[in-house]
């Protein structure tokens, strides 16, 4: 049992985490920039998006994307083993990260943007070359924290993980425990999560104290 828990379950958990984190980061950055825009037509869709996805239970969003959309439209996602799960988690993570990224950008002193603009840099250049590099430094601890949450939230994909080879740790452990009437698979799954999350949690604590020290 243990080899497959690692080679299939843990592998899939990491794949879901990796792509959802990248997707969440991209969505989060886009939504954060929209929320900071001077244009209302960009600000309000971004606000609706973050409020909606933070207001809904993640599990419902996952079920909606994974089952609701295919049922309603008859359309099948490409790469059904991974894509719907990654999309749903990217949207949820993106909504939370958008707030983190926005706070990071707002944490950079206004004078930085002003100095860049006074040198003739257009807004996008000033944002990319001056503000965002500094904002990302402020965002590393909270984003790492969100990585931990996202990693654990991949367990919600157990509701979708019915395709062969697509089970992440929780689904794998649960199926195994059900089939054998033996709970040790659940314990093994729990340990697999902790092996990843505990070092990350320590890392976040360290990063946070270092950022505080540097200010």
């Amino acid at each position, binding site marked *: 049992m243990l080899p497959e828990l690692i080679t299939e379950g843990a592998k899939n958990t990491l794949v879901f985490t990796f792509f959802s984190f990248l997707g969440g980061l991209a969505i989060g950055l886009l939504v954060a920039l929209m929320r900071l825009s001077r244009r209302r037509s960009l600000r309000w869709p971004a606000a609706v998006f973050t409020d909606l996805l933070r207001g809904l239970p993640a599990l419902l969003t996952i079920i909606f994307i994974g089952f609701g959309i295919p049922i309603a439209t008859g359309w099948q996602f490409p790469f059904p083993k991974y894509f719907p799960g990654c999309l749903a988690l990217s949207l949820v993570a993106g909504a939370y990260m958008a707030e983190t990224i926005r706070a990071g950008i707002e944490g950079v002193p206004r004078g930085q943007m002003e100095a860049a603009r006074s*040198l*003739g840099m257009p807004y996008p*250049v000033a944002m990319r070359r001056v503000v965002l590099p500094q904002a990302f430094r402020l965002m590393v601890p909270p984003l790492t924290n969100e990585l931990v949450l996202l990693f654990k939230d991949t367990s919600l994909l157990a509701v979708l993980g019915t395709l062969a080879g697509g089970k992440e740790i929780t689904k794998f452990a649960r199926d195994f425990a059900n089939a054998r009437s033996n709970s040790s698979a659940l314990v093994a799954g729990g340990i697999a999560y902790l092996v990843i999350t505990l070092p990350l949690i320590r890392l976040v604590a360290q990063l946070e104290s270092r950022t505080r020290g540097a200010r």
Partner: protein
Amino acid sequence: MISITGLRKSFGDHEVLRGIDLEVAAREVVCVIGPSGSGKSTLLRCINRLEEPTAGRVVVDGVEVTGPGVDLDKVRTSMGMVFQQFNLFPHKTALGNVTLALRTVLGMDSGAADARGRQMLEVVGMAGKADAYPARLSGGQQQRVAIARALAMEPKVMLFDEATSALDPELVGEVLGVMRKLAEQGMTMVVVTHEMGFAREVADRVVFMDDGLVVEQGPPAALLGSPREARTRSFLAKVL
């Protein structure tokens, strides 16, 4: 070089600038003095439109900065600005601070940008610290790098917004020294300052502002020595 007419600026209900007219000739050094809250900094920030004027016109080197459809990024390259808080980019070295806009705005390749950057750091006496990050520099050194960063764009005008107000007293001199050198080389400068000694020695003209208006202006000896207006006299009595 700079022509300001009827400039007004409100923040909400509060009118900070209440109709400013000011001309600055090429190669002229104008020092703007006045109590805090008089609108000096806002005036300066309206010249390169870091603040959006509520009304009025600003023309710099023949370009109407307040005109419709003006290419703000382009006109800003002709105006260097130096801030009270330096605003160096903390993630860039001294040289990186100077070269960033050369590369991203003027499109210079890194070789040419580095060459001009080092030359500018030389001008402000910071060539030896080209590879230091701002956090490793004193306030005076940071401000000199900030001046080099602005000069590198070869501006026609330099705007100084209380450039020495955030400095420890013993560091003020080195920054004023650089500014004095610039003035002697014929740079057109608008200097918002509390340094009366600098205004007296370097300025061609001193402008006294109070409550959003230009109260009085003239040559430094006259304005600082025998001011006509009561408000100017009472301000100078407090700071001199």
